[in-house]
């Protein structure tokens, strides 16, 4: 089966299929910048930063670190600031934009990835703390053109509307099924409660997880 290769369902190849959308977004950003020339100054003045004394650069602790991130089976050497999260590292440094930034504070689940097979929040995980660990993102689920059973089930059950929470929902669902928490709709809802969907696709998400769990029973995901 062949499916669209866009942000929602993951991007096996980060160099393909993404350029048009990214290009469009950057054009849009440039356009709105020219239309609102006064905005940056106003934004700076109203920013929370106004009352915070900034530490001079000379007093900033040295925080660049050489790391190797192992993402979807590939080792990626990077020099990162110690503040960089796994979420920002995969999106901005490795150009894998399948993992989504929602709240960036651990409240929405959009950034869910697997680390050493367990579902975790990449927005609250520092990249420097994941050395030697296996990170799996949405891009690492499919085998070539063959979707992971959870991805396929989300398509057949229509488990999304806008799609923004979908990569996180799918990664979390993979973890939920592996943990064995798919015994009932209630159990699925409870163990998927860390993934919010503002479109309210929950009934179809539950259906998709039930379908995928049945399919994966006995199989190694």
């Amino acid at each position: 089966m062949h499916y669209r290769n866009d942000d929602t369902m993951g991007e096996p190849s980060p160099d393909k299929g993404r350029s048009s959308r990214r290009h469009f977004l950057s054009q849009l950003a440039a356009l709105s910048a020219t239309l609102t020339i006064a905005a940056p100054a106003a934004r700076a003045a109203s920013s929370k930063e106004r009352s915070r004394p900034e530490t001079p650069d000379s007093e900033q602790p040295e925080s660049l670190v050489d790391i190797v991130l192992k993402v979807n089976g590939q080792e990626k050497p990077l020099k990162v600031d110690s503040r960089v999260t796994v979420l920002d590292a995969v999106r901005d440094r490795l150009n894998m934009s399948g993992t989504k930034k929602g709240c960036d504070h651990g409240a929405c689940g959009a950034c869910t990835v697997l680390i050493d097979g367990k579902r975790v929040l990449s927005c609250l995980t520092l990249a420097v703390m994941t050395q030697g660990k296996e990170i799996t993102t949405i891009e690492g689920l499919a085998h070539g053109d063959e979707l992971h059973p959870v991805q396929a089930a989300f398509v057949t059950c229509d488990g999304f509307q806008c799609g923004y929470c979908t990569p996180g929902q799918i990664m979390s669902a993979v973890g939920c099924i592996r943990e064995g928490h798919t015994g009932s709709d209630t159990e699925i809802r409870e163990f998927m409660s860390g993934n919010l969907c503002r479109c309210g696709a929950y009934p179809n998400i539950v259906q998709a997880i039930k379908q995928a769990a049945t399919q994966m029973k006995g199989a190694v995901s």
Partner: protein
Amino acid sequence: MRAFQFKAAATPSDAVSSGADTAFIAGGTNLIDLMKLDVVTPTKLVDLGPLSFRGITLDSTGLHIGALEKMADVAEDPRVVKKYPVVSQALLKSASAQIRNMATMGGNLMQRTRCGYFRDTDSPCNKRVPGSGCPALEGENRMHAIFGVSDSCCATHPSDLAVALVALDSVLKLQGPQGTREVKLEDFYLLPGNTPDREHDIRSGEIITEIFVPAKAWASRSGYLKIRDRESYEFALTSAAVVLDLDGSTIRDARIAVGGVGTKPWSLPVVAEALKGRTANREAFAAATEQAAEGARTLSQNGFKVSLVKKTILRALSEVGGVA
């Protein structure tokens, strides 16, 4: 987020000698959030992850849990589920599956309050900036405490796990530059008084290495009930950890602690005493529960917690005691 120097701890003594202005990180689910908000701004971050404070051991003295064990692993440990259901239930009703896979037991006990003023650096907060004031006392305080409130602070302690562990008389093992020591979990948490910035009986450089739950054969008859604004993935409005020692239908002993209502995990020995010697039935539970809110100090928006916490305890007692 402010810049910091990162170091992975090689040994316990390496970690505890990291010096001032160091924050210890384990799961990071609370600390990274607070660092992004600029509420906590360490210049050094020491990762405790490489240390060996792990393992769940059940022996004749009780249950020993390594401070670095993940919440999810402890919640699903069959021995914990069977012998200390209140601990498993409190963990499973905490946070989300993802966060429980990341967060450690020690880190859970060290998590900071969810008070909105504490988390907003544009607001005064005596806990964050001592002496700056407490807007919650006269402001948005629906989620705030009714027990242990002072004129400086009314923020609730957010941990469910801590409530269950306090009910079980748990003890923390700490290691610091001066060696190791033990402290009862209930005493580990400090009342805000006029120093709400001091939250724990913990000294500079100290880390939690183990949580010890003393053996209590009757802890298998225990449970945790949590009442929230939404069904899951939410902090408690009120919660109750209940442990009952029954001899037939007679209550030999009991432990009760409540969450979502105290500036620290709130133990209720008065309620436990009132239950002793009584027959486990609805009337005895209701009579004992009536004393639960003695000494409560309500604020403009959280008066409902007085009756809600009583009902929470009553329902928890009824469920654990097998009384319909």
